[in-house]
């Protein structure tokens, strides 16, 4: 752990930009879902994105690994611009991990096979090496004993932790989280959040779409509030929660923090 901490602080100090979004627009048919998104993420930065449903927050982070196509503007990830070029897309996807709301583990493969698949087939890693690395990450998310089981035999929280480990096995520079705790029972949310906090502390660049405001307060370097396909406000968490600038943000915060 201490090793990764060191490297992360170095990269943070250099402050280089990992993700750049410039004037990004996206439409679903006639529906204008992303409007002029401008965002820069530096290496090692932890960003939480919140906002009401349908505000375009998931769509935005899904544009970063091209699960969604943007129609206007520029997205540059680690120096690679996302265009129709399949090579560029593959390059970006190798470096960007993603965790989904519904885990999306592969049910026909064991936990270990889920984790090894992409390193073996995309990174061309020898199987033994990939398995050893996978076990390391499974230990990190605290479920090495489940490696031989199938996803269907695990609880939701365990599945989500496997999903995190699966992404980490590709050794990504950036991790995207698309509402990782929204499909979980309250008892399981904590174990997943703890894993995410640990990951954040190790210096991973993270973009999380989440409604867990506690997580945002403890981990985030920056909180972004979106509504109607626009970034309404972005600030560091203390300011964001205590001194929101826009009335829309105030209303949103009052609604989610009241109960």
């Amino acid at each position, binding site marked *: 752990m201490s090793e990764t901490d060191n490297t992360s602080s170095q990269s943070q100090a250099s402050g280089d930009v990992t993700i750049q979004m410039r004037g990004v627009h996206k439409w679903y048919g006639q529906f204008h879902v992303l409007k002029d998104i401008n965002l820069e993420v530096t290496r090692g930065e932890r960003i939480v994105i919140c906002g009401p449903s349908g505000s375009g927050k998931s769509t935005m982070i899904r544009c970063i690994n091209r*699960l969604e196509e943007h129609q206007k503007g520029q997205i540059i990830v680690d120096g690679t611009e996302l265009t129709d070029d399949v090579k560029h897309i593959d390059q970006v996807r190798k470096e960007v991990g993603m965790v*989904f709301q519904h885990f*999306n583990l592969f049910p026909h493969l064991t936990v270990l096979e889920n984790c090894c*698949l992409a390193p073996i087939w995309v990174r061309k890693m020898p199987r033994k090496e990939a398995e050893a690395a996978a076990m390391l990450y499974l230990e990190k998310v605290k479920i090495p004993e489940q490696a031989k089981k199938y*996803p269907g035999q695990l609880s939701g929280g365990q599945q989500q932790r496997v999903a995190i480990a699966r992404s980490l096995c590709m050794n990504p520079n950036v991790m995207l989280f698309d509402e990782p705790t929204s499909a979980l029972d309250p008892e399981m949310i904590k174990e997943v959040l703890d894993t995410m906090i640990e990951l954040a502390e190790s210096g991973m660049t993270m973009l999380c779409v989440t409604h867990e405001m506690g997580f945002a307060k403890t981990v985030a370097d920056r909180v972004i509030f979106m509504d109607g396909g626009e970034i309404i406000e972005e600030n560091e968490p203390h300011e964001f929660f205590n001194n929101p600038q826009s009335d829309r943000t105030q209303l949103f915060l009052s609604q989610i923090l009241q109960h």
Partner: protein
Amino acid sequence: MSVHTPHPDLPPPLSSVGFIGWCRSNLFSTPMHTALSLFAMYLIYLTVPPIISWVFLDATWVGDTREACASSTGACWVFVKVRINQFMYGFFPETEYWRINLAFGLLIVLGIPLFLKRFQHKGKLAAFILIFYPIITFQLFSGGNFGLTHVETSKWGGLSLTLILAGVGIVASLPLGIVLALGRRSKMPIVKSVCVVFIEFWRGVPLITVLFMSSVMLPLFLPEGTNFDKLLRAMIGIALFQSAYMAEVVRGGLAAIPKGQYEAAEALGLSFWKSMGLIILPQALKLVIPGIVNTFIALFKDTTLVLIIGLFDLLAIIQQAFADPDWLGYSIEGYVFAASIFWIFCFSMSRYSMSLEKKLHTGHVR
């Protein structure tokens, strides 16, 4: 603070378990069920004993001529016994039967390791069987090389022809069907429309028409002097016809895989073919095993239609034997024999698919 102790599990009441419990809940649960159960038992009593005595008890098994059956009231299996070689090998020269036996024996020997749990190289063996076995079999059947006498395809027949037609159809139609199904779901408009047109054309035409066209019409369009084996034409017709059905079965499986699986595969950086081969198809094909086997079984039985283009498969060669003046009037035995052979093969396929489904079951998609 009070401590919560869960209630212990109690055994079920005696009347609901065991044989009596089973009968009570499944056969005699209400007066209506009781009446239906008794009626069904009466029907079984009426039909099953006579069938058993016709097929087994009163049947004639020994002898070489129809005189052996003259006194019996049951089935005359002597008819089948006398003709069995023809039913199995068609008009293949008698001295060359060993070639057919060798071909099918080889398949069994090669196939056994695939069912052994401890055998390590299943993939390689399966690839060998798919690539080299057809070549070996073709050499054995057709001959002409390695000192084997040439046997024309018109002499192939009986069960061996049925198995060859079905085998070629099954092996060709599954991969072709998968490609067509993927093509039909493609975002590329030309690929998609080619696949849609292909599938809809072949599904819209009866197999009889396909076979008839391939044997009678096709030669009219081909340049004069081109000789294109009739059996080969039938095989191609059957494979293309069934692949259209297979494509729709596979497409059903592809549609049942949640979008999240495609996205997770993409997000990990897997290319289209890798994500299909490693993630989507293994799950989709597993889901549609019943549909695939259904198509295989239909294909197996549809091979009997080749009799209209003059190929003598199992059914055709049995029917042809009815015309033998020595054995007039034994068509029931022939049909029962044909039916039981077909039933054995189809039922085995069905059982195999069930065991495969069980083996591949690893929990549910979330």
